[in-house]
């Protein structure tokens, strides 16, 4: 006979058993649970508090800047100029001028520039406005996105095509040379699609020779037979990716270096996607200055080093500003460098291996043959446009190395320090070769007044939404309503606390919209539970048992209902960008915190207040 088991029946039986075992513990939370709850809320409250005070615009005067006046004098001068100063802090030689108005930040920086020896050591900064006892606990305000703070944002595209093409050209040169040396006549070399190179052989029997040559001399390329006497040579996919990574990282590094000259403490330079770089400059109001710095070009040159004091020489300086005498004309420029990588040499020391193109190889070979045992200097120059549109050049020597033997188009530089320094040098060499042009594909400017307006509007909406919800819940559910209200307030506190704690979490305008939605939706958890409690009361249970069953039966539904929104929040976060990620973050976090406060915290409250209420005539 077939035995049908009703799941529901089985469930109830099971449930009854469970009820019996914990009969004594109906609506009872152990003290440690209350402890966890209280500690969580206090920690989150402390973490959320600094955001309430916000941040003030400030100018940081580092001790390298050489402030020429006393603090009192500084205060007086700034006040005379009409700057509204909140306070001036000084610690470890570093001075922080905190302003009352963000709009005066740039003006103050210009004024301060006249009072210091080196204006490049002035940086725009933000100082938390919270009292110092709070900050000493190690908590910080929530980071605001550009749409709330004002600033400039760029998206740069790194064009990789020239990088691949350069490698292709070098291979073509090399193959042509091989053909000449091996006397393989009539081989045609041309460029194919997708940065590949096509070899059309006059004699198909020579194909093995070419394959052998490419495999041994150019291991980064792979050869494919396309037909009789036709070979397609293309970069291996892993090599292409490696090259792309290298190029983008090198550009990132260069951009970071350049952006640091702008003097913005919280500037952000990060990779986005495969070949994009996002730059965020909070507080910057004029994109022109930033653009000229981003658009700077770099170049590299190798020089013959002359003895100190030579007459017919030019003087370059290295990092420590020691003068280096070099020949007037460089041996060759960075445009000949195809690749530079750091590695470990035969002697176990760090080295940088450099690959030059054919023309560069010839120049280097001729020069090094005559200069074995002599030092050679490598210089790095950056050209940038200043605010007046003039081009300024900065050149420094990044390495001096002794030529050990005649060099060809592949050689290495040793003595550049440890492996890390070698990597740094390789990065600079590649940067100097300027193989991947960078273009600005997106530029957004948010004025500071609009940012402030967005904050005010966003939080006004949050306050209004919250107030309406609190009043409504208080009236609708009466005694249980206040539980929901306490849970809602705790929810918002925890949400703000988490936003301030999570590294990388940024609050944007859509993020505030997410917070407002959370307020409306968070009560749903409580509503579901309260409706179930009402149902149970109608069925004639006493209050305490109705509470117990209400919570139990609503749990599954709550989980189901929140999961779909969680799915969209996760999808939005992983696919979206900037402001949208901010929305996904508050939406997703809001779901988690509302489950915590709606189920755990409100249960604790209800147990404490009504857990022992066995009255059957309760109205909810």
């Amino acid at each position, binding site marked *: 006979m077939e035995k049908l088991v009703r*799941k529901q029946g089985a469930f109830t039986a099971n449930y009854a058993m469970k009820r019996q075992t914990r009969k004594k513990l109906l609506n009872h939370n152990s003290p440690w649970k209350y402890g966890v709850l209280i500690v969580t809320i206090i920690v989150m409250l402390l973490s959320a508090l600094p955001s309430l005070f916000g941040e003030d615009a400030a100018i940081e005067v580092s001790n390298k800047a050489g402030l020429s006046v006393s603090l009192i004098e500084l205060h007086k001068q700034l006040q005379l100029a009409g700057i509204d100063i909140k306070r001036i802090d000084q610690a470890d030689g570093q001075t922080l001028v905190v302003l009352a108005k963000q709009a005066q930040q740039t003006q103050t920086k210009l004024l301060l520039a006249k009072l210091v020896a080196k204006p490049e050591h002035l940086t725009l900064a933000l100082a938390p406005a919270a009292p110092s006892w709070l900050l000493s606990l190690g908590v910080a305000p929530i980071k605001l996105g550009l749409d709330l703070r004002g600033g400039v944002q760029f998206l740069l595209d790194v064009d990789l095509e020239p990088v691949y093409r350069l490698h292709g050209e070098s291979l073509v040169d090399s193959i042509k040379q091989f053909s000449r040396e091996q006397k393989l006549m009539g081989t045609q070399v041309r460029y194919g699609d997708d940065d590949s190179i096509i070899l059309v052989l006059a004699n198909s029997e020579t194909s093995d020779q070419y394959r052998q040559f490419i495999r041994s001399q150019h291991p980064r390329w792979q050869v494919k037979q396309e037909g009789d006497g036709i070979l397609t040579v293309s970069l291996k996919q892993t090599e292409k990716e490696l090259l792309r990574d290298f190029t983008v990282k090198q550009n990132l590094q260069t951009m970071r270096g350049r952006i640091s000259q702008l003097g913005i403490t919280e500037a952000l330079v990060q990779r986005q996607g495969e070949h994009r770089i996002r730059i965020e400059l909070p507080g910057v109001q004029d994109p022109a200055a930033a653009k000229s710095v981003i658009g700077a070009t770099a170049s590299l040159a190798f020089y013959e080093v002359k003895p100190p004091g030579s007459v017919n020489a030019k003087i370059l300086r290295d990092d420590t500003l020691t003068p280096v005498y070099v020949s007037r004309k460089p041996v060759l420029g960075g445009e000949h460098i195809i690749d530079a990588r750091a590695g470990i040499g035969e002697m176990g020391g760090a080295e940088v291996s450099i690959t030059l193109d054919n023309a560069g190889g010839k120049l280097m070979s001729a020069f090094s043959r005559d200069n074995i045992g002599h030092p050679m200097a490598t210089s790095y120059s950056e050209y940038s446009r200043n605010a007046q549109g003039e081009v300024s050049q900065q050149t420094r020597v990044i390495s001096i190395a002794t030529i050990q033997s005649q060099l060809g188009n592949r050689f290495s530089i040793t003595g550049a320090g440890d492996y890390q320094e070698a990597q740094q040098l390789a990065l600079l060499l590649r940067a100097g070769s300027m193989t991947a042009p960078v273009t*600005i594909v997106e530029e957004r400017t948010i004025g500071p007044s609009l940012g402030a307006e967005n904050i005010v509007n966003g939080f006004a909406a949050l306050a209004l939404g919250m107030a309406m919800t609190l009043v409504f819940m208080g009236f609708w559910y009466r005694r249980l309503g206040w539980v929901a209200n306490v849970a809602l307030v705790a929810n918002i506190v925890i949400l703000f606390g988490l936003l301030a704690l999570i590294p990388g979490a940024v609050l944007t305008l859509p993020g505030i919209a997410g917070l407002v939605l959370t307020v*409306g939706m968070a*009560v749903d958890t409580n509503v579901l539970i309260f409706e179930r409690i009402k149902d149970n009361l109608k069925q004639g249970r006493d209050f305490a048992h109705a509470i117990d069953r209400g919570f139990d039966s609503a749990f599954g539904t709550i989980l189901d209902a929140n999961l779909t929104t969680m799915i969209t929040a996760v999808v*939005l976060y992983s696919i979206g*960008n900037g402001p949208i990620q901010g929305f996904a973050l508050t939406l997703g976090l809001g779901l988690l915190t509302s489950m915590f406060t709606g189920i755990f915290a409100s249960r604790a409250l209800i147990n404490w207040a009504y857990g022992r209420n066995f009255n059957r005539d309760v109205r909810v």
Partner: protein
Amino acid sequence: MMSIFNVKRVNSKFAEMKMLTKLRYFSSLISLSLMILSLSVIAVKGFNWGLDFTGGVVTEVRLDSKVASKDISALLSLASEQEVSVISAGEPGRWVLRYSLPSTQEDVSQHAMDIEQVLQPLNSDVEVLNSSIVGPQIGQELAEQGGLALLVAMLCIMAYLSYRFEWRLASGSLLALFHDVIFVLAFFSLTQTEFNLTVLAAVLAILGYSLNDSIIIADRIREGLRTEPGLPIAEINDRAVKATFSRTMVTSGTTLMTVIALWVMGGGPLESFSIAMFIGILTGTWSSISVGTCLPEVFKLNSDHYRLVPVSDTP
């Protein structure tokens, strides 16, 4: 577990129950015809895609409130080959200027006008509140990404629904979901309100919220099918709708209140977001009761589909 409705009350309210079923079918008919209407609106009118998806330049400026829009247009058309649209942005003296960019490989900012310079002859303080320059390829990519996000979210939700509910029951929630999204999209198409990234985020959020109501009703229907297998499905659905009605109203009510707060106080940037959410929540509530419950009935969902798996005697 579920015996909220004792037999007496069911009998006395029988006539009303019938009424509710009729109401559900009637509202489903309205929903279906609205859906067809919405789809044709979208097909005919298309969308007014925002800068995020098309690329181009949008600048918001604050000028002297006496400056007229035709003066601005005149100056801008002198400076630019592209047609520049000048739209008032709420308060007097605040304008949104928008124009497209030629598709080139160069830096996007090279083709953007220096608005402050162009508007110099107006003799007014020009304050650039915000400015966005988006290259055409970025717009294309964002549009693709947005479409992908929508698709992935839909697929994940379908996978979740089919795992959690029997397909006949899930189909109702799914139709309700499409209904809501199509309705919101049709609104943006009909009014030609700008469809930007924030609106897309709202549409995705609606995907999540719309299901919220449907799932809670579906949960009750499933419970009803299990506990009272003898009842006709229409009856079970009516009861599920009634049992969840006050919860649906309270939650939709509080969410609508906060969205209205966002609409009223949130300012320009959040306006279209709030409108999208507002419509989404309204239709979400409506559709969870109408098409959400009727489609499973059309597919002849019955308690057999939730009968529990027979346990065979031989292991």
